[in-house]
C-alpha cells in the first residue's frame, strides 16, 4: 500500500490522544484508511439511549474529497436511508479540505440531535416525520432500543459484541 499521508497519520493520532466525547474512531488493522466509528446518541434526542456503529473510509484524494461515512446500525432518521447513507452538506458540496474526521463526526452527531425532514434522504421517514412528529420520534426511540447498543452495556463491555 502507498505510504499513508502525513495528514491522516496526524488526524488518527489526535483522535486517539484527544478523543471527542461520545465518539470513537479506530482505524482498522489491515487498512489505516478504514475506521470503525461509534457515535453516542445525543442527549434529549430520540437516539439518546443508544450507541451507533458507523464505518468511515478516507478515499485516495482525501482531504481534497470528503470521507465516506455510513451507519452500520439501523436507524430511523429522515436524513439517513436504509443503507445507512447520510445526507449531510459537509459530506457533499460543502466539504472543505480544512474540515477533519472529527469535525465530520461531530456534524453527524449534531444531525442526530436535529433531524431535518425538509432535506430528506429517506423519503418515507421524512414524510412520517412531517406528518406526525410525535409518532416518528416514538419509532426512532423504539428502533434505537431494538437495534443500537445500549449505552450502559457499551461502556461496561466495549469488546463484547452486543445484540
Amino acid at each position, binding site marked *: 500500500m502507498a505510504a499513508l499521508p*502525513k495528514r491522516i497519520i496526524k488526524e488518527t493520532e489526535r483522535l486517539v490522544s484527544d478523543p471527542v466525547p461520545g465518539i470513537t474512531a479506530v482505524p482498522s488493522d489491515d487498512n489505516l484508511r478504514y475506521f470503525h466509528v461509534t457515535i453516542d446518541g445525543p442527549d434529549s434526542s430520540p437516539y439518546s439511549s443508544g450507541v451507533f456503529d458507523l464505518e468511515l473510509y478516507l478515499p485516495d*484524494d482525501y482531504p481534497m474529497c470528503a470521507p465516506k461515512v455510513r451507519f452500520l446500525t439501523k436507524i430511523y432518521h429522515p436524513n439517513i436511508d436504509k443503507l445507512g447513507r447520510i445526507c449531510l452538506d459537509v459530506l457533499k458540496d460543502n466539504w472543505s*479540505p480544512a474540515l477533519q474526521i472529527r469535525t465530520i463526526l461531530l456534524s453527524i452527531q449534531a444531525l442526530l440531535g436535529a433531524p431535518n425532514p425538509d432535506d430528506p434522504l429517506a423519503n418515507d421517514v421524512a414524510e412520517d416525520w412531517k406528518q406526525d412528529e410525535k409518532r416518528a420520534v416514538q419509532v426512532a426511540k423504539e428502533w434505537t432500543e431494538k437495534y443500537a447498543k445500549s449505552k450502559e452495556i457499551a461502556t461496561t463491555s466495549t469488546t463484547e459484541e452486543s445484540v
Partner: protein
Amino acid sequence: MSDTEGSNTGSEFDVSDFEYDDSDGEYYQGDNENFEAIQSYSKSLKESGCKQWRLAEFIQENFVDRVDKLHIPSSKASKEELLILLHHCNWDEERLINLYYDGADELKENAGLLRSPIPGFQVRDDFECSICCNLEPSTKVFSLSCHHEFCLSCYYNYVKEELPKGKLIRCMIPDCNLSIPHALVHQICKLNNNSESVAMDNLVDNELLYYSANLYVIRHHDTFRWCPAIDCQNLVQMDLTARLAELDLDAIDPFDKNYRGSDSEVKIVTCSDGHEFCFSCKFENHLPCSCSIVRAWDRKVTDDSETYSWLEVNTKGCPECGTNIEKNGGCNHMKCFKCAYEFCWICLGTWEEHKGFYNCNRYVAPLPQEEKEMKKKRRYLDRYMHFYSRFMEHQSSMAWDLKTLKSIKKTTEEYMHEKATDSTKTISYNEIDYLQESFKLLVRGRKTLKWTYVFAYYLTKSNFRSIFEQNQDFLNALVEQLSELFEKIQTSQDNMKLVVQLRTDLVNVSKSVTNRRLKLIEAAREFLQRGLITFDEGF
C-alpha cells in the same frame, strides 16, 4: 421500371423523375435547378436561428465583455471584482444590478469579494500546512486577504477538485467564504507563483471561466449545446424562438402504440468546425429518423447487441468457393480473389443481379407456407435482422469510406506540396477543389442511407413503405457508385490523373446522392406527419 403502387396514392414522392438507363449502367437526371432548390431549402432548415460559438468567443462575449456593460464605476469595483460579482450572479447582469442597488455590501460579502489587498503567493520558512500537515524549511504558500495560508500544492489540488463545479472557488476555511479571483485561479492551475504576472486581459483560456461556461450550458439546456464531437470545444446556440418543444419530445413514449409522430421536425445543427449533430438528442445527423425513432432503435440494439454482435465480423465466406473474403473498402461490390466470383457483401447474392438497379434492400417476406411453420417470434427476428444487418454494414462502410477519403486527401495534399518544386506537376487547385464537397456528400449520403434502414424498420406496411424502399434502393445504388469511384481513385497507379478524369462523374453522382437523400428525408417527414410510424413490432 414498373409503375409503383405509390404513384396513385397522391404522394409527392415521384419515382419516375429518376430515370435509369440500362445500357451503360449510369444514372442521370436532368434538372439541376431542382437540386439547388432542395439544397437551399435544407440549408435554411438547418441554419434557422442557430448561432455557432467557439469556446473563446463565448467566454469573451458572454462573460468578460459583460463587465464593461455594467456601468458600475471603477471606483466602486474593479474589473476583477465585477467579474466575480457577475460569476456569483450566474452571468445575469440584471440580477447583479438589482442586488447591487439593493445592497452593494451584502452582495460583495456573499460573492466573497476581496476586502483588502491579496497577499497571494508567498514563500514561508518552516511552514506547516494544516491541510497536508507537511513541514518544510521553505514552502510556497497562497492566501487571500483573510491570510488563511496553505501551501500552494494543497491549493492546486483543491482548485482542481473545485473547478468542475463551475462555481466561484472560495478560501479553504469553510466559514471564510472569500473568492479566489479568476486570474489567480489560472495561476494556481499553472502552479505559477509569480504574483507580478497576474493578468486580467487574457481570460479566454481561463480554467474557471471554461467550467463556468460548462455550467452555463447545463443551466441553459434549452438553448445551448456543446458539440458532441470528440475534442471539439464548440457550442451551438438555438434561437429561443426557434427552439424545440423539447419537453414534448421527452414525454413521448416510443413504445406507445398510439404514438403519432409529432416530432417530425429534427433540428440538425453544425458547429463552427462543421460537425453535424442533432440539437435535441446530440446523436449524429440521424435524418430521416425522428429522435424518438433513434431512441427506440438505440434501446433495441443495446438490448440485443450480444445476440447479433457476430454480424459485425468483417469477413464472410465467398458464396461460390467458400474462401474467406475480408471487406477492404466501403463499397459492397465484392470480388473473390480466388475464384473471381462477384457478389454483394450484404446479401451474398451474385453481383450480376445487382448491377445497375441495386435491389438487395427490399425485404422479401418468406412464402406463406413456410411462414406458417415459423414461429411468430422468428419472423420478427428475421425482419429485425434484415434491417439491423444493413444498418451495421453501412455503419462500417462509413468507416471504410473515411479511410479512403483520408488517403486521397493525403495524396492530393502531398501533390500540391511537391508541385511547388516539380514543374512536371501541372494539376491546379481548381481542378481538384471539388473533392472536398464530394467527400462531404458521400459521407452524408451514406449516413442518411444507414438511418433509412432504421426508419424503414418502424414504417408500417403500406404503399408508402414500398415507395420508400424503392427510393432507398436508388440512394443505395448511388452511394455505392460514389464510393466505388473514390475507391477507384485510391487504388489507381496515378491517383491524381484519375482525380481530374473522374471529376465530372464524381460531381454528378454526388449531386444525385444529395438529391435522392433530401427526397428521402422529405418523404420520411411526410410519413411521420401522417402517422405511418409504429413502435409495435408485431406488425
